[in-house]
C-alpha cells in the first residue's frame, strides 16, 4: 500500500500538485487519470523518488519515504517495477537479456537459477520463443509484455505503469490491461497505472484517482464512474460519443 498525504510540488513557482491525498491499495489496480498537464506524471515521479515533494509525505506500507535511510531507499528501489510508456527496453539486449538485467544487477544467484526465473516470467507474459529476439524485431504489444516481464522479474511489491497501452490497438491494449490486473492479484502487489485510455478505466479501474489542475478532483472505482454526477469527471471520461452512449445505456440499466 502507498499512501500519499497532502502532497505539494511546484516547478519554478508554478504549483503542479496542490495537496494530493490518496491511498493506493495493495492487490488492486490503482489508476491515476486526468488530462495532460493535470499532474499525473509528476505524482508518479514523486512516488518513484525521482522528484522530491515540496510538502506532504509518501508512505510505503506505513513508513514515510522521507524517513528512509540510504540503504532503505536502495532496498525500496529493488521492490519497485516500472513499465514505461514506450517500453524503455534496452536496444542492445535481447528480450531474454532485458528480463535478466534486474536479476543480474541485484542478485548473486547462479546463472542457471536466474535463467530459470527469466523463462518462468516470459512464460507468464506469453513470450516463449521470443527470448533471442531484439526489441526492434518484436511488435509494440510484445515490447510492452517484455517490459512487464522485466518489471516483475524481481518480484516487486510495487508496480508502476506509465500509459502501458498507449500506441496499441484496442485488442492488444485489453490484453495488456488484463495481464497487469492478473499479475497484480497473483503477486498481491500495489499497482499504479497512469492512463488516458477510458477502456482501461472501465476494464480494470478498481481504485481510481482523477486529477484536475493538480488537485484530486474525484476518487472511486469503475462501477462508480457510471453513476457519478461530478461534471469534471463526466466531461473527461465521456468526452467521446461512444462512451456517452455506453453511460446512457448503463444508467438505463441495459
Amino acid at each position, binding site marked *: 500500500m502507498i499512501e500519499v498525504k497532502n502532497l505539494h510540488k511546484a516547478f519554478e513557482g508554478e504549483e503542479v500538485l496542490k495537496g494530493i491525498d490518496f491511498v493506493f491499495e495493495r492487490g488492486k489496480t490503482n489508476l491515476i487519470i486526468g488530462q495532460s498537464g493535470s499532474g499525473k506524471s509528476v505524482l508518479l515521479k514523486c512516488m*518513484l523518488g*525521482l522528484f522530491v515533494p515540496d510538502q506532504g509525505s509518501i508512505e510505503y506500507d506505513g513508513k514515510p519515504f522521507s524517513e528512509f535511510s540510504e540503504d532503505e531507499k*536502495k532496498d525500496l*528501489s*529493488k521492490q*519497485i517495477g*516500472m513499465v*514505461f*510508456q*514506450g517500453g*524503455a*527496453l*534496452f*536496444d542492445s539486449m535481447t528480450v531474454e537479456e532485458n528480463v535478466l*538485467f*534486474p536479476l*543480474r*544487477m*541485484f542478485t548473486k544467484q547462479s546463472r542457471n537459477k536466474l535463467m530459470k526465473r527469466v523463462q518462468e516470467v516470459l512464460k507468464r507474459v506469453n513470450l516463449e520463443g521470443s527470448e533471442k529476439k531484439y526489441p526492434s524485431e518484436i511488435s509494440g504489444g510484445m515490447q510492452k509484455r517484455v517490459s512487464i516481464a522485466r518489471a516483475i522479474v524481481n518480484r516487486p511489491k510495487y508496480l*508502476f505503469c506509465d500509459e502501458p497501452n498507449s500506441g496499441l490497438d484496442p485488442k492488444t491494449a485489453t490484453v495488456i490491461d488484463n495481464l497487469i490486473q492478473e499479475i497484480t492479484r497473483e503477486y498481491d502487489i500495489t499497482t499504479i497505472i497512469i492512463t488516458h485510455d477510458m477502456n482501461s478505466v472501465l476494464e480494470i479501474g478498481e481504485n481510481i484517482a482523477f486529477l484536475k489542475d493538480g488537485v484530486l478532483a474525484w476518487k472511486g472505482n469503475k462501477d462508480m464512474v457510471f453513476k457519478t454526477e461530478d461534471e469534471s469527471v463526466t466531461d473527461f471520461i465521456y468526452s467521446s460519443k461512444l462512451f456517452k452512449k455506453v453511460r446512457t445505456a448503463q444508467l438505463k440499466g441495459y
Partner: protein
Amino acid sequence: MNYLHSIGEYFLMLKGVFGRMTKRSVLKDLIFKEIDDLIISSIGIVAFLSFFIGGVVAIQTALNLTNPLIPKTLVAYAARQSVILEFAPTFISIIMAGKVGSYITSSIGSMNVTEQIDALEVMGINSLNYLIFPKVIAMLTYPFVIAISMFLGIVGAYTAAVLGGFVGPDAFIEGLQNDFDPFHLTYAFVKTFLFAFILATVPAYHGYYMKGGALEVGQASTTSFVWTSVVIIVTNYIVTQLLLS
C-alpha cells in the same frame, strides 16, 4: 551564463560517474564491450589515415628541401617529429571526436529519449556510472591506438620517401634516429591520456543531458563533435605550453 552552467553540470556529471559503482561482474562485461566498440573498431581507420598522412608528410618535406646543403635525413626527422608530436596524438584525436564521440553521444542520447536512462534510475542503478564509467576505462587503452598510429605514420613516411626515390633507406633510418628526445614520447602520451578522458566524457555529457527527440540526438552529436574538438585543441595548447616550452 549558459556556458558556466554547462561546465558546472559537466563536473557534477563526473562526480556521478565515479560515484555509486555498478556491480563488478556487470561492469567487467561493459568495459570489454566498450573496448570493442570504441577502440578495436577504430584501429582500421586510424591505421589507414596514419600510413597515408605519414607518407604525405615525407613527400611534402622532401619536395621542399631544395637546398643541397640540407641533408636528406631531415625528411625522416621531420616526419618523425610531426607524427609523434602532433599528428598521431592530436590529429587522430580530432578524427576520433567525430567517430567515437558521435557514437557515444548518439547512443546515450537515444537511451535518453527512449526513457532507458530513466529505467536504469528507477531500478536504483547509478546511470552515470553504468553508462559512462566503462567508456572512461575503455579509453585508457586509447594510447595503444596512438602508438599504432605513430608506428604506421613513420612506416608510411618511410615507404613514400624510399619508394618515391626522395631518400635512401639508410639515410631515412639515420634521420629517424637523429636527435631523438624520449621526453617527446612522454609528452605525446601524457596528452593522449588527457584526450582519451575528454573523448569519453564530453560526448557523454552531450548525450546524457540532451533534451528532445530523434532530431535533437543528431544535433547533440554535431555539437558534441564541435565541443570535443575545441576542448582537445585548448588542452593541447595548455599541455604543450606546460611540458615543452
